[in-house]
C-alpha cells in the first residue's frame, strides 16, 4: 500500500498563507457558455509514476506570456501575487483531479504535496493536461515497501533486523543482503568480505538461511561474490544468531530469516541494474486480483577474466559464472493468502589452461576442470486465518544438479527433493497460544562417478543411490504472564540416510529432541530483558568442524605457496556436492544459552546487550589399526565452545539517517579428545574473532545524494604458523606448529558509499560508488611463502576496491 500523503501543520499553514492573499483579491473565473471548459489531470510521483492522493492543486489565471510547461523555481508565484482568479481542489486516491467551468486559455497549475517538491506549470485549459510528476524531497518517499501480513511470529532471544533501505545502501556490501548482515554484532567479519555467514563463531555449515518457509540449499554463489537472491525481492531480513525458536531446525548455530515481499499492485514497475560483477532486472505488478514479481541476475566475472586471459595467456584462470532468478505470484482473498514461488540458482566454475595441441606446435586453451551446481525450487504457500486458528501449508520440490568434470574424472549428482512445512496455531486465550507444526525433506539422489580408461589405467565407474531424509515436528506455546512472556518449545528430529552402491545397501537413522525456552520481561515501555536456553541439533554435514574442504589448504601461486585458513577455504570452495554422502548421519547438537536486555528511548539511540554461550558436541567414531595389532575403534569427541557479549547502539531518523555501533567480544575454541586416551586440549577455532567493532552510518544529503561509511576494527584471524620445512619425496613440505596458535595483525578498514538519484518523469536513475578499504590498509588474510616455506614473501588481503553500479527504476 502506498503511503498516503500527510499534511504537516507547517506545510498546511504555508499553503493557506499562499491562498490567503489570493483569496482576498481573487474571484471566481468568469467564462460564460462556450468560453468555459473542464480540465482533468493526474498527480503522480516521479520515477515510478505512483499516484499521489491528497495532493493540493491550485489553478490560477496566468496573464503573463510565459511558454507552456513547467516553470523554474524563480518563476513561482510569490506571496504578493494577485491572480485574477483561483480555484483549488485535492487529488483523489488515484491522484486524479478535475476543475469544471474554467476559462479557456492559459492558466497556471500549482501542485503541492507533503514530502514533494512544489511544481508550477503553465497549461492550456483547452488542451489535454498532462500528468504532473512531483519529485520527492526525501529518499523514503520513493521506496515503496509492500507490506504483508507477517508469517508466524518466531520469537528469539536476540534477533536483529535490517530494513530494505539498510540492505540496499549499507557501505561495503554492494547491496547484497547477506553480505550486509556481516555488519551486525554476532556476525563475524569474513576475508575480503566474501560470502560466509559465521554466527557466534559457528562454522558456516552450522547455520541456515531461510527464504520464506524453506531453507536455501546454498546462500551464496561460488566464491562468495553474491547471495543467490537479489535484495529487491526481500521485504526484510532478521539475524537470529542463537537461541531461535523451535520453528527452525537443522542448525546448531544460528539462522538468518529472509522475508520475501509481494509484488506491487500500484502499476507495473521494475528495474534494471548493472555493476562490475553482474547485471540484473526485476519486473512486478498486478495480475488479476493478485500481483506478480519476476527477478533475475547474471554474473559475468568470467567475461572479465577472459579478457585477462588474452592479456596473459600463460596464467590459468578460474572463470566463475552464475545466475539466479525468482518468480512469484501472490493473491490475498479475505483471510486466505496464496503464494506460488519458483526460485533457482546456478553456478559454473571453469578452470582453463594453455597447452600444446597434438602437433606440439600450436597452443590451445583447454579446460582443466568444469564444476556446475544448480538448484531450482518451486513452492506453494497457503495461509488461512479462521477465528482463533491460523494455518500454514507449504509444500515444495527442489531439483539439484551438480557436476564436476576434469581431465581425470567425471562426477554427477542429481536429486529431486520434496520438502514441506505445515503449521497450526491457536490462540486459546489472549494470554496463551499454541503452535504445532512439522517440516522436513526427503532427498533421493543418484551419483555417478567415472574415471575414464586410458593407456595407463583402467576405467572406473561408481554408481550410488541413496536417500537423505529429515523429518521434524515442533511445538511451542506463547504464555503472557503480565509483563513476562514465555515461549517454551520443543523440536523432535529424525535423520535417516539410505546409501546404495553396487555392492551393498546401508540404512542409518538417528533422532534428536531439542527442548527450548525463550523468555522476555518488559520493564515498562522502554526496558526489556530476554533470555533463552535450548538444544539445537542438525544432521552431520561435511565441513561441520571447518576441518575438511574441497579446496586444498595449500595452494601454489607461481613459485610461491599460500596456506589458506578455514574461512578462506570455505569462501573459495565451489561446494559442488557430487560426492557420496557420509553413511552415518550422526547429528551434531549444541547447547545454547543467552540473556540480555534492551533500552529503547523515545529519542536517541537504542541500546541492546546480549551475553551468550554455545557448546557443540560432535562425537565421531573412527577406526585405527596399529600395525600388527587388531583394529581398534576409537570415539573422538570434538567439542566447540563459544562465549561472548554483543552490544548494539542503534539510531534511526526516519529514512534520512540510520546508523549503529556494534561490538562483539567473543571467544571460540575447539578441543578434540580420543575417549580414554588423552586430555582434551583447546585451541582457538579458525572462526574465532576476539573483538569485532563495526561503526556504520548512512545519511541522506541534499540533491538526492546519500553518503554512508562503515569502519571496522577486528582482531586478527588465527592461523597456524609454519615453523620448518622438510625436503620430502615430492618436494618441500611445511611443518606446522600449534593449530591457530598465532594471529594476524588486527584488521581495520573504512568503506565509503555514495549514492545519487535522478528523478526523471517516468523513471529514476540511481548510481553508486562503493569503495572498500578507502585508505588501502594492508590487512592480512593469508601469508604467501616461498616455494620451500623458508621465507614469508608477502601477504594476501583486499586492497582498495571500488565498485560501481547503475540502476534504472520505473
Amino acid at each position, binding site marked *: 500500500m502506498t503511503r498516503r500523503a500527510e499534511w504537516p501543520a507547517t506545510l498546511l499553514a504555508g499553503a493557506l498563507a499562499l491562498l490567503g492573499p489570493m483569496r482576498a483579491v481573487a474571484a471566481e473565473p468568469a467564462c460564460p457558455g462556450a468560453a468555459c471548459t473542464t480540465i482533468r489531470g493526474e498527480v503522480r510521483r516521479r520515477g515510478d509514476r505512483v499516484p499521489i492522493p491528497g495532493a493540493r492543486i491550485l489553478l490560477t489565471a496566468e496573464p503573463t506570456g510565459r511558454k507552456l510547461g513547467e516553470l523554474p523555481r524563480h518563476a513561482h508565484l510569490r506571496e504578493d501575487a494577485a491572480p485574477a482568479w483561483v480555484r483549488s481542489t485535492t487529488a483523489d486516491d488515484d491522484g486524479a483531479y478535475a476543475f469544471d467551468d474554467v476559462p479557456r486559455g492559459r492558466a497556471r497549475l500549482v501542485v503541492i504535496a507533503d514530502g514533494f517538491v512544489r511544481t508550477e506549470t503553465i497549461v492550456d485549459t483547452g488542451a489535454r493536461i498532462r500528468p504532473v510528476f512531483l519529485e520527492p524531497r526525501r529518499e523514503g518517499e520513493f521506496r515503496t515497501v509492500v507490506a504483508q501480513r507477517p508469517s508466524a511470529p518466531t520469537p528469539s532471544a536476540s534477533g536483529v533486523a535490517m530494513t530494505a533501505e539498510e540492505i540496499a545502501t549499507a557501505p561495503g556490501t554492494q547491496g547484497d543482503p547477506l553480505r550486509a548482515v556481516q555488519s551486525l554484532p554476532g556476525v563475524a567479519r569474513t576475508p575480503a568480505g566474501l560470502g560466509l555467514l559465521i554466527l557466534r563463531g559457528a562454522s558456516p555449515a552450522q547455520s541456515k538461511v531461510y527464504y520464506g518457509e524453506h531453507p536455501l540449499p546454498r546462500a551464496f554463489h561460488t566464491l562468495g561474490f553474491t547471495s543467490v537472491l537479489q535484495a529487491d525481492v526481500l521485504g526484510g531480513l532478521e539475524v537470529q544468531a542463537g537461541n531461535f525458536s523451535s520453528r527452525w531446525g537443522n542448525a546448531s548455530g544460528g539462522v538468518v530469516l529472509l522475508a520475501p515481499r509481494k509484488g506491487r499492485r500500484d502499476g507495473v514497475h521494475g528495474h534494471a541494474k548493472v555493476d562490475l560483477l553482474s547485471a540484473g532486472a526485476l519486473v512486478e505488478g498486478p495480475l488479476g486480483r493478485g500481483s506478480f514479481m519476476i527477478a533475475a541476475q547474471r554474473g559475468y566475472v568470467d567475461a572479465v577474466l577472459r579478457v585477462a586471459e588474452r592479456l596473459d595467456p600463460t596464467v590459468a584462470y578460474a572463470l566463475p559464472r552464475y545466475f539466479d532468478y525468482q518468480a512469484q505470484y501472490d493473491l490475498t482473498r479475505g483471510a486466505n493468502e496464496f503464494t506460488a514461488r519458483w526460485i533457482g540458482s546456478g553456478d559454473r566454475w571453469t578452470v582453463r589452461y594453455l597447452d600444446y595441441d597434438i602437433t606440439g606446435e600450436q597452443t590451445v586453451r583447454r579446460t582443466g576442470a568444469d564444476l556446475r551446481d544448480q538448484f531450482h525450487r518451486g513452492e506453494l504457500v497457503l495461509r488461512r486465518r479462521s477465528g482463533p486458528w491460523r494455518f500454514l501449508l507449504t509444500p515444495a520440490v527442489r531439483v539439484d544438479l551438480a557436476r564436476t568434470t576434469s581431465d581425470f574424472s567425471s562426477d554427477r549428482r542429481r536429486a529431486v527433493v520434496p520438502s514441506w512445512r505445515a503449521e497450526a496455531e491457536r490462540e486459546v486465550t489472549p494470554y496463551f497460544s499454541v503452535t504445532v507444526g512439522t517440516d522436513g525433506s526427503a532427498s533421493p539422489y543418484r551419483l555417478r562417478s567415472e574415471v575414464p580408461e586410458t593407456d595407463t589405467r583402467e576405467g572406473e565407474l561408481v554408481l550410488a543411490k541413496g536417500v537423505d531424509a529429515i523429518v521434524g515436528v515442533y511445538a511451542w506455546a506463547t504464555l503472557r504472564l503480565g509483563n513476562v512472556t514465555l515461549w517454551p518449545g520443543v523440536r523432535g528430529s529424525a535423520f535417516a540416510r539410505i546409501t546404495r552402491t553396487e555392492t551393498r545397501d546401508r540404512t542409518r537413522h538417528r533422532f534428536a529432541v531439542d527442548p527450548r525456552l525463550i523468555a522476555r520481561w518488559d520493564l515498562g515501555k522502554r526496558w526489556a530483558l530476554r533470555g533463552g536456553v535450548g538444544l539445537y541439533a542438525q544432521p552431520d554435514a561435511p565441513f561441520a568442524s571447518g576441518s575438511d574442504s574441497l579446496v586444498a589448504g595449500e595452494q601454489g601461486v607461481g613459485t610461491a605457496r599460500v596456506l589458506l585458513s578455514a574461512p578462506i577455504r570455505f569462501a573459495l570452495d565451489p561446494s559442488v556436492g557430487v560426492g557420496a554422502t557420509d553413511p552415518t548421519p550422526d547429528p551434531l547438537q549444541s547447547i545454547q544459552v543467552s540473556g540480555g536486555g534492551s533500552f529503547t528511548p523515545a529519542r536517541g539511540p537504542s541500546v541492546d546487550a546480549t551475553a551468550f554461550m554455545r557448546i557443540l558436541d560432535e562425537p565421531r567414531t573412527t577406526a585405527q589399526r596399529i600395525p600388527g595389532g587388531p583394529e581398534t575403534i576409537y570415539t573422538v569427541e570434538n567439542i566447540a565452545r563459544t562465549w561472548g557479549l554483543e552490544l548494539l547502539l542503534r539510531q534511526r531518523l526516519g529514512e534520512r539517517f540510520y546508523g549503529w555501533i556494534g561490538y562483539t567480544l567473543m571467544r571460540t575454541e575447539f578441543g578434540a579428545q580420543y575417549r580414554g586416551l588423552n586430555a582434551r586440549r583447546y585451541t582457538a577455532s579458525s572462526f574465532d574473532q576476539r573483538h569485532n567493532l563495526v561503526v556504520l552510518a548512512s545519511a541522506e544529503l541534499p540533491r538526492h545524494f546519500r553518503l554512508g561509511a562503515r569502519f571496522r576494527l577486528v582482531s586478527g584471524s588465527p592461523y597456524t604458523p609454519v615453523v620448518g620445512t622438510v625436503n620430502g619425496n615430492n618436494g618441500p613440505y611445511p*611443518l606446522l606448529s600449534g593449530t591457530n596458535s598465532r594471529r594476524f595483525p588486527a584488521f581495520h578498514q573504512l568503506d565509503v558509499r555514495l549514492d545519487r538519484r535522478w528523478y526523471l518523469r517516468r523513471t529514476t536513475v540511481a548510481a553508486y560508488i562503493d569503495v572498500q578499504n578507502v585508505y588501502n590498509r594492508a590487512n592480512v588474510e593469508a601469508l604467501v611463502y616461498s616455494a620451500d616455506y623458508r621465507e614469508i614473501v608477502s601477504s594476501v588481503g583486499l586492497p582498495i576496491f571500488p565498485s560501481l553500479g547503475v540502476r534504472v527504476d520505473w
Partner: protein
Amino acid sequence: MVDLARSAACVWTLGIAACYPTPDPPWLVTRTELIALRLEVTREGELSEPVAATPPDRIRTEMLPGDTARIRPFVVGPDRVWESDELDIAYYACFASLCPGLLHEPAADLPCGTRLDPATPVCSVGRGPDAELVMPSEPLELVSFGAPQLFGIAGAPGLSDTDTCIAAVRARPFGDLSDCMLVERTVSVGPSWVLQLLQSEQEGTDTSGGDSDTGTDDGTSTGDTDGGYTPPPEVYLQWPNFNPEVERFTVVITRGTAERTIDAAPSDRLSVRAGDRVLIVLVQDPRDSQAPAVLLEPDGDIIRRFERPLARWYANAPLDERSAGLDALSWTMPHGVAEVRIDALLDDGYGGLAWGSLHFEVDDTSG
C-alpha cells in the same frame, strides 16, 4: 602506487600469480640445506642371494630384509657442499607417510637396531656418518605395510645444533625449526619379485601371474603351476636398482660467436666471463637407466619399469636467463659474482640418487 595498481588489478582479474613479489627460486641456495639422502647397501642379507650382482662401479640402493645400508646426506650451502662426516645428522625411521609427526613418541628414543618393526611406528637409526639402516627381517610386514620412511634432522651450521632441533621436532606442538635442516625419503624395497617369491613361500598360496605385457607366448610368463609361484626367469639376470653416478659433464661456453666445449668431471673448476652463455649437459651412463626392468605387482601382474634419471639443478648465485631441462642447464653468467657453483642431483625416480658439482670462476672485469 605500483603495488597498489598491481594488487588492485590482481583482485579484479584474479590473476594472483602475477601479483606478488617473486620469491627466491627454489634452486637458489641461500642457506645450508639438507637436500636428499642416498642409501648404499653395504651388506646383503641371505634373501639377496638369488639376486644378480650390481656392476662393480655401482652401488645398490634398493634393500631386502636383512640388508644393511649406509646413509649419505646431500648437503649444499652457499659456500660449499658439505661432507657427511662434517655434520651431526640424526636419522629416524618410521612406518608412516610423514615421520616428523611421530617423533614425539617415546619409541623414537629406541634404536632400530636389527629389527625395524612396523609395530613400532618410529625408531632411531643412528647419528652421524656411522648411522646404518638395517631392513626388518619379516618380508610379509613390508608387503603389508609398505616401505619405511627415513628421516634426517640436523641444525643448520652456524644457526642451530642438532640436539636443539631434535627437541623442537619432538615437542608438541612443533617448536621453531626454521634454523634446522630436515629431509625425508622412502626407503626403496626390492627387487619386488623376491618379495613376491618369499610371500608365496610363506603363505603357501598360488599367485599365478596375471597378464604379461610382453606380448609373447614363449611360456616364460608366470604360470599356474602346482605348489607355488615361479617368477619369470629373466628376473634372475637383472640388476637390482642401484644408484646412478654423476661422472661427467659436457660444458659449452659461448661468448659472442665463439664457442668452446669442455669435458668436465665433478668438482672441476672452470673459468668464464660475466655475460658468457653456459650450457651444462650431464652425461649419463646408459646403464643408469636400468630399462626395461621387470616388476611384479602383489597380484602377480608383470609390469615393466623404465628408468630415466632426471637432474635437479641448484646454484649458489642468481643466474640470468636460466633454462633447465631433464639433464641440461643453461644460463647467462651474471655480473657481480666471483664464483658460481652448480650442483646437480640425479634422481632415477626409484630411490637411486647421485650428485656432482661444477665450479665457475667468473671474470667480471669487462663489467
